[in-house]
């Protein structure tokens, strides 16, 4: 018996090592919006690993990751909140938490998931482990009406920040004590906030306004200063063009002392200086949707609204010139950079393809097939404020 024990343990050990241990740092999920599934991919060899089905309506779906980068939380349009284990390649939990939702965020400590809902308008906060509801925050404004909520992000200090589309408000929810959330409300911040972002350092929350020009900015270090209007001229301007798709604020970046962001309606990418003053407008191919910075901030990649969404342009952040125009195909919806930026992945919805492109040579390194792909989300988002 004494001789057999070591033998058994050796057998057990070898069984374990044959389980193929791996990290999750090079994994990602791609939304296949029309058929309610996600594709699990890895960006070391640029391959697809698995398909995970049964996620409901995924139009405009987005994903955040747990801090161990093992679990992806998928926010579906139909109010579905789905927790996916990217190592076991399966759904571990799924709840339908509202009738119509638009996105979500994970708290600084990773313990809370907040979801932004259109119907009923408000934000719900869940335990990230069990997906049990912790707090329900209806976005109630005048006469007990509930507003759609938009631009929900996390910020340092266990904060969640979001806009109230119908009510012209920004709310900051402090979740340090989950028994007693503290909500600070800012009113009259501007008409129709439609999206929000937090600067990568977690300090400034900025909301885009659809109903008027300018942006609403809140300094999260100094809530007492209130919401101020920046970039007064930012917006649709005098000659209001129809806007066929709401521009996204995510992915804006400071490149050195400049910030590049999409104009609303106009075929321009705007350049701001440190004091939020516009210093330049770069003429581009169409109405920009995402203006996304390569991780080293040397390039900005821009995609466009319908009907000009077959094109991508690349701007050099030093010269502020367009250095490349690509035509990947019909309906380029989203881009995601590999963590250090040598590649960018882009979904070409109407051609059922995801292309992996070298950001120096602009060559297509790999093409994967995907069913009507939209958002691409890599696990390195797990460690970024506001993503």
């Amino acid at each position, binding site marked *: 018996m004494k001789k057999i024990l070591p033998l058994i343990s050796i057998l057990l050990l070898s069984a374990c090592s044959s389980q193929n241990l791996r990290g999750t740092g090079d994994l990602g999920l791609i939304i296949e919006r029309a058929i309610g599934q996600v594709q699990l991919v890895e960006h070391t060899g640029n391959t697809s690993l698995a398909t995970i089905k049964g996620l409901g309506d995924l*139009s405009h779906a987005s994903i955040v990751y747990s801090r161990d980068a093992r679990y992806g939380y998928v926010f579906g349009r139909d109010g579905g909140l789905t927790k996916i284990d990217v190592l076991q390649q399966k759904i571990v939990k799924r709840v339908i938490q509202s009738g*119509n939702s638009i996105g979500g965020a994970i708290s600084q400590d990773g313990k809370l998931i907040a979801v932004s809902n259109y119907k009923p308008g408000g934000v719900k906060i869940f335990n990230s482990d069990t997906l049990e509801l912790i707090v329900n925050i209806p976005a109630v404004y005048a006469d007990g009406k509930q507003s759609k909520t*938009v631009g929900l992000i996390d910020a340092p200090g266990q904060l969640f920040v979001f806009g109230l589309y119908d009510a012209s408000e920004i709310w900051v929810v402090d979740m340090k004590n989950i028994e007693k959330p503290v909500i600070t409300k800012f009113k009259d911040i501007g008409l*129709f906030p439609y999206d929000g972002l937090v600067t990568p350092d977690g300090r400034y929350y900025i909301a885009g306004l659809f*109903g008027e020009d300018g942006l609403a900015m809140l300094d999260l270090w100094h809530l007492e200063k209130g919401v101020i209007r920046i970039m007064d001229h930012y917006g649709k301007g005098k000659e*209001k063009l*129809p806007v*066929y*798709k*709401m521009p996204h604020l995510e992915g804006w970046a400071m490149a050195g002392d400049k910030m590049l962001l999409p104009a609303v309606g106009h075929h321009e990418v705007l350049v701001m200086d440190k004091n939020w003053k516009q210093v330049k407008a770069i003429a581009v191919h169409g109405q920009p949707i995402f203006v996304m910075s390569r991780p080293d901030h040397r390039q900005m990649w821009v995609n466009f609204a319908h009907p000009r969404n077959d094109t991508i342009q690349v701007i050099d952040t030093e010269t502020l010139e367009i250095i490349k125009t690509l035509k990947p195909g019909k309906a380029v919806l989203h881009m995601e950079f590999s963590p250090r930026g040598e590649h960018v992945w882009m979904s070409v919805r109407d051609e059922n393809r995801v292309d992996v492109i070298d950001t120096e040579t602009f060559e297509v390194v790999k093409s994967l097939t995907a069913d009507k792909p939209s958002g691409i989300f890599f696990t390195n988002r797990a460690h970024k404020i506001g993503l």
Partner: protein
Amino acid sequence: MLKTGNILQTLSFILLVILSLNRYAHASDNRQQELQHLLKHDCGSCHGMTLKGGLGPALLTDSLKDKPDELLFITIKEGRPGTPMPAWKKLLSDSDIKSIVKILREGLN
């Protein structure tokens, strides 16, 4: 001889009509599909891919039943100033917009 020529002529005329009708039907079929696609994906970016609503209101047959065709037509053509609903007249012809209203009445499949 004359008779056969006549018959041939008539036949080829009928054939032509059938062919062109067919082609016409084909073209409008394609356009119809394009419009369905536009509705689902591009209007869908604000109204939800299944038109159950998003930033913009639901465009389901039921939710629109009290709204007259003219109102829907003019909303799509001219947009709603002061709201995110854009004017589509630069991209869509009047007959496109009429087809879209018809699709909305019948429901997206």
